[in-house]
């Protein structure tokens, strides 16, 4: 793997353990387009400072930095968020069918297998991806909602094989977004959208049927009163009962 460059990416740095791949790549002197990959994080983090469970021998933790100017001016970069989710889901599909929970969590069945954190400043986009590959269990507080490819398939995943697959999908999709924008990704994401057609609740207040995503990457919901509503943000959950 070391010495191998995939698509737009330069040679990856692979380490056994790090505090947080994202924090390292965010540093101003870390090169753009260089994947920083760890097998374990001691301070893995997710959205809004949430902890990301990153035990040894379990997962893949990857961060990389892209210059904003790599993309045509006017491309809505927040839509890349969904493109990254699709890329991870495509890589997981090699082992078992996965779905995308809007906007970009990757699920196997009803459980999360991968998460993505994207941070931007005025010049760069810093992307962090955590994938649960081979964990054979989760702490009690995560057990309900988390899974790994191993738990779903009973087969161990080769770390390097998965990493190469993922970097390939990412590179291909980033280049496509760069030249064609978000529109070509909409059908593929809609096909993989978790709870599509089901009754869902957004942010524990708005309920309705999830119709899919639109060409802006927003979730489209048909409310109980029959009105169509789009959501630029919010957490979707399945309506039980």
């Amino acid at each position: 793997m070391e010495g191998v460059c995939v698509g737009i990416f330069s040679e990856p740095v692979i380490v056994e353990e790090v505090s947080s791949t994202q924090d390292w790549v965010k540093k101003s002197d870390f090169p753009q387009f260089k994947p920083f990959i760890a097998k374990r994080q001691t301070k893995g983090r997710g959205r809004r400072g949430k902890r990301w469970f990153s035990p040894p021998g379990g997962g893949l933790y990857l961060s990389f930095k892209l210059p904003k100017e790599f993309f045509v001016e006017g491309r809505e970069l927040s839509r890349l968020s969904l493109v990254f989710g699709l890329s991870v889901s495509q890589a997981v599909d090699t082992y078992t069918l996965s779905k995308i929970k809007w906007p970009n969590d990757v699920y196997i069945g009803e459980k999360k297998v991968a998460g993505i954190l994207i941070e931007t400043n005025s010049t760069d986009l810093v992307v962090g991806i955590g994938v649960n590959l081979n964990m054979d269990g989760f702490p009690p507080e995560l057990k309900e909602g988390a899974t790994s490819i191993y738990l779903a398939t009973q087969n161990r995943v080769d770390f390097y094989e998965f990493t190469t697959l993922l970097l390939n999908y990412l590179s291909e999709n980033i280049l496509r977004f760069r030249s064609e924008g978000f529109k070509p990704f909409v059908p593929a994401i809609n096909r993989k959208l978790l709870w599509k057609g089901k009754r869902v609740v957004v942010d524990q207040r708005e309920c309705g049927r999830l119709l899919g995503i639109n060409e802006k990457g927003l979730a489209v919901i048909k409310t109980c009163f029959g009105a169509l509503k789009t959501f630029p943000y919010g957490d979707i959950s399945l309506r039980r009962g």
Partner: protein
Amino acid sequence: MDKEFIKELIKLVSSSSLTKFKLKTKDLEIKIEKEIPNALATPEVEAKVTQKGEFKSEKLLPPAEDVETPEEKLHVIKSPLVGTFYRAPAPGAPPFVEEGDIVSPGQVLCIIEALKVMNEIESDVKGKVVKILVENGQPVEYGQPLFLIDTNV
């Protein structure tokens, strides 16, 4: 442009020593004038607002602009996108800035989250944060003013 912002502006001008305040953008013009004939009179505040069209959510960063008054110069930092406004990197963490803080160009002022992308919004000037116009966790529109910064410090 929301009512709260205009209310905040009126409050700010009323409590300051300013007698005239004018803010003009492509979509909006706000003029606030205070008449104080003598020291005992209560200030009269008149706000005139005209708004043309809606903010677009598709453009890149709206130009930050300076609001000039005889007494001071306030720089307005606006939201470059539609999303959720956060004052701190995580719940429970200290805010990036507080009112009264001196900030420099490139310093992170807040995060705006859209489609789970955490956009760090940086200051493009050096100055003192006079007013934070949005509450933590609130949705913001494209072009909505977020911070007033006094560059005369």
